[in-house]
């Protein structure tokens, strides 16, 4: 879809590369933590909230 306000092509390409690289890095990190969550140490904070409230 063409628009007269499209702006300079290299500006669009630069934005796409920069933000795209950050996005890609985040996706890689996301899959890393999904595949290997780790955190088996019983002193990890995620286990603390399971204690009885009283």
């Amino acid at each position, binding site marked *: *879809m063409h*628009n007269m*306000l*499209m*702006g300079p092509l290299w*500006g*669009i390409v630069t*934005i*796409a590369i920069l*933000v*795209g690289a*950050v*996005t890609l890095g*985040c*996706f890689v*990190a*996301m899959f890393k*933590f*999904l595949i290997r*969550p*780790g*955190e*088996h*140490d*019983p*002193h*990890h*904070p*995620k*286990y*603390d*909230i*399971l*204690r009885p*409230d*009283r």
Partner: protein
Amino acid sequence: MAVTVQDLSRTGPTPIRGEQDDHELSSIFKAYTVSATFWLIFGTAVGLLLAFKFGAPDFWAGKYLTFGRLRPIHTNDVFYGWASIALVGTAYYVTVRSCGTKLYSTALAWAGLWLFNIAAIAGTIALDLGYNWGDLEYREWPWPIRLVFLAALIVTVWNILATIARRESQDIYLSNWYIVGGLLWTCIICLVAVLPWYQYGLGQVTISGYFMHNAVGMWFTPLALGLFYYAIPKVLNRPIYSYALGVLAFWTNLVFYPMLGAHHFLFSPLPWWLQTTAIICSVGMLVPVLGGGANYLLTMRGRYHGRIESYPLAFLFVGVLCYVFGSMQGTVEALRSLQAIWHFTSFTVGHSHFTMYGFVTFAAWGGIYALLPLATGKRPGQLGMAVHFWLATTGVAIYVISLSIGGTIQGLDWVHGKPFIQSVVDMEPYYLWRGVGGILMFLSHLVFVWNVWRMTAGKPGDAPSPIMQSEEAGA
């Protein structure tokens, strides 16, 4: 190394609270929930009236009941009355319990509740009298009233931060990152929205996009996600699948979300690079959404039966699903080719209910059903929760599906150059189904009132403990 329940009993700080502290926290949680429930009933009654005004525009068409006045009353009251107060109430409970300490100041918590309510009451009256800030969505309240809301936020974040500062553990639990983040970000967002000197021309358009989207994504979303990170593990008696993934989702939400607002103004005179950045960041939001959603669902893995037996978990489960699919729908809507069809149609109304109702409201209900009985020692009835769940789930499904189909037809009519009135005629059956869905949703809210009564002041019900048996105990 696997972690057992026996290990857990040895970990964590020793609670230093007393009976009086627990009683005060319970009173605050109850008051926030009851107050929020009032705004839920009022705000959605107005919403239901609005839904039927599409079919019968002349019904109750007096000056104070026109669509233009009632529509912002509905949106602002469910945003700042219902969802804000409900989520802040649960946030107080989550912060105090996860920090293993007592609330910093009971007086500040009560002051915050009064300020939230004063803002909502004054805002409702102002809007109904015709004092509207104009075409600035979700900030239609006159600016002095929005300052009262900002004061409520500041009081709350001060109280929460001071409570976290006196925690016994070294770490700050993940939920508190989201809660504090949401409160601080929203203070900034409200401040930006009220400062006057760039609120004209394209600057006003940019700020409008910034505020309207971040009021959802940097306020309700982090508070609801923070609630998920506490309530889901608590109910399941099982830790969150990946804590690190929750941290990644927190930071990526902060990286991508603040730049989304301009996707509400694609094809507008806003700079094209800003629109493009908004679209790319909308795609980037798939990281916290998919990562966060997978984290919650993997925490629930293997406990499918629990979602049928435990209604708190069922509410949280639907909330997670609507978070994932509603947010992905938002990403798709941000693409230029699709927004050319869907923008300005009822599809976006369906999307906002998919997220604000299916995600945020179900998260608040799940959190209240999971945690309020722990605070008060009173449980709702199992039948009451079941009726609430199925009415609300069926209602929102009918609402969202009908508006999504109808909105698409509406958009295609406009793209094909058909007369505007043709799109109105084509929408007629979908407006009817929207009303049917709205009735079911509203009926579910009345049942919720009954359930809140039983969890606070009334006779307790027969529902089982919201905390399920641990796997070791069940084996």
